[in-house]
């Protein structure tokens, strides 16, 4: 009886641990390596919505994936942009960097022009300008 109880307790603990690791993300306040603060992010789509902003002329180009990692004390970001239209699209993008207090962590970046072929994906990447940058937004605009 004692053995059966022990086995049952161990099995329940393992099950609970397994469920816990599947819930949420590896670190609180982070999703796919990217800082999310208090935002509720449970999928890649949620993360893209939280991190991507459109300014100026709207573009049909969409970010479909964002992944972040640390290199030293700087943040490295990969963003996948998708052009699902049947024509070449020209856009401009920039990253906006935010510090731990929610203030701008760096001067506004320059707009970077980009051409995407029809029905194609392109990965843009960047590195935070300094270790003051704790969060970011990817800003997109049409250049057509």
């Amino acid at each position, binding site marked *: 009886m004692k053995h059966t109880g022990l086995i049952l307790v161990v099995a329940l603990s393992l099950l609970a641990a397994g469920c816990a690791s599947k819930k949420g993300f590896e670190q609180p306040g982070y999703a796919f390596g990217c800082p999310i603060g208090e935002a509720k992010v449970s999928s890649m789509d949620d993360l893209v919505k939280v991190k991507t902003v459109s300014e100026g002329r709207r573009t049909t180009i969409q970010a479909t994936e964002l992944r972040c990692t640390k290199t030293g004390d700087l943040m490295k970001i990969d963003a996948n942009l998708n052009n699902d239209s049947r024509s070449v699209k020209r856009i401009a993008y920039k990253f906006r960097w935010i510090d731990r207090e929610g203030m701008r962590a760096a001067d506004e970046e320059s707009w970077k022009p980009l051409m995407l072929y029809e029905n194609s994906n392109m990965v843009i990447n960047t*590195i935070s300008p300094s270790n003051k940058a704790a969060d970011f937004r990817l800003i997109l605009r049409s250049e057509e």
Partner: protein
Amino acid sequence: MNPRFLIASLAALALLGGCAKEKTSYGDAKGVETLTNQFGSTDLQMMAESMARSMLTAPVIVSANLPIVTVQEVRNKTSEYIDTRGITDSIRSELQKGGKVRFAVDQAAMNQQVEELKRQQNSGLYDKESAAEMGRMVGAQYRLEGNIMSIVKQVKDSKDVYYKLNLQLWNIRNGLLEWSDEKEIRKTTTRG
């Protein structure tokens, strides 16, 4: 009609016409500039940003404690006039903001540095205790240098320009290349 009145009216109209043609407004200094396909502000900003960010993650910069770098002017190997000092200064500013490197006085600023030292030491105007001493300057550990080149192709109604900026970080003590990276830009102009 009075001829004087006619002349005055014509002069006033000409003045108004002249004024109406000109309009000045402020623009976005960080905006995409596509006025011509010559080297422009967007190219300069993109190159400086991309290169500085790449260099900030170089193992030699990450592992060292505020390494000292001297910057040499980027050599212009394109067919057009480019103020390469502007490229160098922008890269240095970006790196400085990153807070991972320090900069030693470069060749271009050495004359002013030496003149200031001499002024403090030899003019007799400064308090000896607070005046900067000779022989206290710190030598750089690394040397940053680079080239910008272009390939220009032109046919009747189309001009294609390809720019490539290459930067290298050399270890001054042992002559090893510690980091290198490139940034490419292609611009095409078509008429009609």
